[in-house]
Every structure is written in C-alpha cells, then in structure tokens.
C-alpha cells in the first residue's frame, strides 16, 4: 500500500490531506552533471503536519529541502509552497515566500562574524525593526531554546548542540508558517539530540507549525511519533502505550526515489525490503 502511494505521487487536488497543503511536490526531478539526484518525487505537507524524511546519507534529503525552499530549482516537476508555484519564480520573487519559512541547516550555518543576538535577529535587522523590539524577541527566541545566556556570544564559542539550538531560534523568531529541519541532530551525542528533538516537538505541539524534518536517526523519528510536549511539565512526555501522534508521518528516500509515504504504523509493517533493512 505504501509503495503504491510512493510510486504514484498524489497531486495536491487528489490527496486526502491536500485541502490546503502548505507544500506540494509533483513529479520533481533534479540532477547535477550526472544521474538524477532526485527522481519523480511527489508528496504534500498539510497544515500542522510534521513529515519525517528518512533515508541513508547521500540519498538527496538535503537537496529535497533546498528545493522546497527554492534554494535549488528542479529540472522537472512542480513545487508549490503556500499554494504558489515556485519552480518558475525568480530569486527576487522567492524572498517573500522564504520569509514565511524557517530553515535549520545541517551544521547550523550561523554567520560566524556575528554574535548570537545578531544571528538570531538577522531577518529583523534587515527589516529595520527597532533595536528594543529586536532584543525582546531575540531573548524570547533564545529562552525557547534555553540559551538566553548566549546572547552576546560568537558562534565559535558555542558547542555543536548549542549552535543547532541557536539555528532553531533563528528559524523560529519570525514565527514561520513552515519549518524545514535539515538533520538537526546529525553528529550530536544522544543527550543533546534529545534536547533538540524536544524543541522540535515543542514547536510542533505548542505552535502547531507544519514541518519537514530530515534525519537518518530512527530513534529521533520514533521519539517524535511516540511523545508529545507537555507544557505543564515543560518537557516531553510519552504518549500512552500504542498511541502515536497522528500528525507525524514518514517519507523515505532510496537512491533519489521516494519509496515510502505513510504513518508510523505503515512504516513498521511495510514489506518493502529496503525499508525493512533500514529499520533493522
């Protein structure tokens, strides 16, 4: 069943979740001087939905996120972001749409010549928001990621996990309508990874922001599915046994092709050989 969904990608109009998808891809392909990196990709992201994009390293997961944000242009196919076709838009026409999304890059991609405050406030500074308002919102965003004490630090003095959390604060300060996480826990120790996943969960459950999370760490993906953020406790809590978050679903890539699109239940019961090997 899941293989059928993946091989015949639903268009925005015929998908069950496509009443008003935030993102919709149809038959998207891209290559860089060689065989296709991504081929015939199609899926949609509904409002308040979190899609976890799984796959081994080098399979095109980061490329897919960059396509969705218009940082790369597909060779073929259609990409709709907030209902707007972006594959034919110029760079300048894309800036207003990118302002509505937040993106967390693999290594954080913080500007190393700027302080944490200026990194997090980058968009606000460009929009000439008054300094007092910027400071207030930066403190708020840094408090969300529990790093308010790093306000005046430079990225070089932060650990890998702290950089990712600052990158999350930077992505969230503008209250985006879609968040793209590119391997936010890649290369981090388990404790720091859990902290990052808790932040992702907090954003999902408190603000209901739709998102796509790229990861190759199954434990992160399953934690997101089987836990929820408890605002009263201020941390994540396990869902009752057998329950999973209905708005968190999975995609899986293999050699540039989408081979799975479905829920965690479908994922663990699929008979696709590659998915089974990946899970094991």
């Amino acid at each position, binding site marked *: 069943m899941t293989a059928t969904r993946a091989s015949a990608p639903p268009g925005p109009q015929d998908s069950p979740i496509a009443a008003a998808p935030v993102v919709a891809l149809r038959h998207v392909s891209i290559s860089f001087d060689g065989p296709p990196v991504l081929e015939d990709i199609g899926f949609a992201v509904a409002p308040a939905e979190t899609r976890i994009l799984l796959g081994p390293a080098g399979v095109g997961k980061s490329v897919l996120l960059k396509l969705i*944000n218009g940082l790369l242009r597909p060779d073929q196919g259609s990409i709709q972001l907030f209902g707007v076709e972006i594959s034919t838009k110029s760079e300048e026409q894309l800036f207003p749409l990118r302002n509505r999304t937040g993106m967390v890059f693999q290594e954080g*991609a913080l500007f190393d010549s700027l302080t944490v405050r200026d990194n997090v406030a*980058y968009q606000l500074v460009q929009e000439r928001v008054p300094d007092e308002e910027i400071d207030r919102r930066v403190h708020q965003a840094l408090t969300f990621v529990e790093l308010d004490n790093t306000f005046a630090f430079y990225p070089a003095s932060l650990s890998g996990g702290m950089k990712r959390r600052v990158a999350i604060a930077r992505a969230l300060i503008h209250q985006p309508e879609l968040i793209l996480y590119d391997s936010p826990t890649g290369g981090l120790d388990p404790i720091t990874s859990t902290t990052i996943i808790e932040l992702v969960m907090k954003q999902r459950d408190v603000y209901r922001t739709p998102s796509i999370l790229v990861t190759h760490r199954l434990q992160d993906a399953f934690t997101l599915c089987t836990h929820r953020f408890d605002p009263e406790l201020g941390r994540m809590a396990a869902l009752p046994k057998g329950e999973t978050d209905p708005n968190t679903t999975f995609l899986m890539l293999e050699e540039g092709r989408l081979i799975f699109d479905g829920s965690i239940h479908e994922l663990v019961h699929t008979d696709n050989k590659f998915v089974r090997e990946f899970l094991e």
Partner: protein
Amino acid sequence: MAIGIVERTAKDIVHTAQDYTLFGYRAVMNLFRPPRYWTDFLMQANIIGVGSTTIVLLSGFFTGGVLALQSEATLAQFGATAVTGRFVSLTMIRELGPVLTGIMVAGRNASSMASELGSMVVTEQIDAMRALGVDPMRKLVTPRLFACISMLFFLTILADAFGIFGGGFVTVFMNHQNGTQYFSQAWEHLRYPDIIQGLVKPLVSGFIIASVGCFYGMRTSGGTEGVGRSTIDAVVFSSVIIIFADFLLTQVMLTLMPPL
C-alpha cells in the same frame, strides 16, 4: 577522446565567461535598485582602502625609487639626468601606479573576498542568508564591488604620489641631484591625458579585483580544499586580467589621446 576533452574544456571556458558576465552585470545593476547596504559598503571600503594603504604606499615609494635608480645610469649616457623627475612621474602616473596598486590590492583583497565568500558557501551560510530572505549578491557582492572601485581610485593616487616622492628621495640622497629640478620636471610635463589615463585604469582594475574575487568565492565547491582553490584562482585570474586590461586600455587611450 581528445576531441571530447577539447570540447568539454571549451564549453567550460565559455560557460565560465557567460556566468562571470552575468555575475558582473547583476552586481553592477544592484546599485540602482533597493535595498542598498551602505553600512556594508563603508565596512568594505575600510577593509579594502584603509587596510591596503600601507602596502600600497610602500610599494609605490620603492617602485619610484627603483625607477630613479635604474633610469639614472641610462639617462646619464645621454646627459639627460635632469629629466629623471619627468620619467618617474609619467611612468608612475600612467602605468606603474595603477598596475602595481591593482596587483597589490588583488593579492590582498581578491584572495580575502574569495576565501571569505567561499567559506560562507561551503558552510551553507550563503544558503542560510538566502533562506532568511536576503540576496547575497546585494548584501555581499555589490558593496565589495563598489568599495573596491572607489578605494582603488584613491589608493592609486597615493601610490603615484609616494612613487614620485620615492624617486625624489633616491634622486636627492643617492644620485645627489637637484631636488627642485626633479620635482619641477615631474610636475611641469604632466598633461591631463596622462592623469586621465592613470585614473581610468584603477576604476577598471577595481571592478576586476572585486568581481573576480567574489565570483570565484561564490562558486566555491568541494569543502575547505575548494576554498583554497578559489582563492588561488581569484588572485591569479584577477592579476592576469588586470595586466591584460591595462594593455587594452593603454592602447585605447593612446589612440584617443596621442602623446605630444
């Protein structure tokens, strides 16, 4: 096989030339449409202009000195040591001032632009900037381009002046000739076409340095090794293109404004 390699290389060259032309065009046109980043322009003007002043002054001074030293022996054979000032000032203002300043600034700033932007590319900072709704061409390239053009203009004037002083220093203290004669010769035989020629060249060199440095920086790939490669390419190509452009400009200027 061999034809395939030639074809691929030719296509690469044409493709790079096309990309560079479009890159330069976009960088220039950005100045005529908002947003403009004046703070970044001033910061770059400080880095390029103030930061390069010492090397430009020293290289100008010693080049003028060497010119006076070298010319003294030759001019003495014709009993013409009195025209040392004229020789040094014309050579500095028309040729060596603009070219040497261009090459010195290329070595210092084309490399720094390529490595800085290249590092930003490989660490995804450029993508992050685009994702945050800011055009890196406007924010990073255009301010560097216009800062480099404007600062190279003033640096060249400084290099010319210090070259003439250097020549004067050697003439007076090492060749034991008359200083007043040197400076009056240096001044009296200058014509506007000489000065125009000397001041048009740095405008072109400034464009070459910044556009080549930023171009190679922005197309960096292959991690830290790629940054090193971009830096080398930026310095080598900007230096060679400066000398080539100098040759073309000199030919054009001599045709438009022939010497007396």
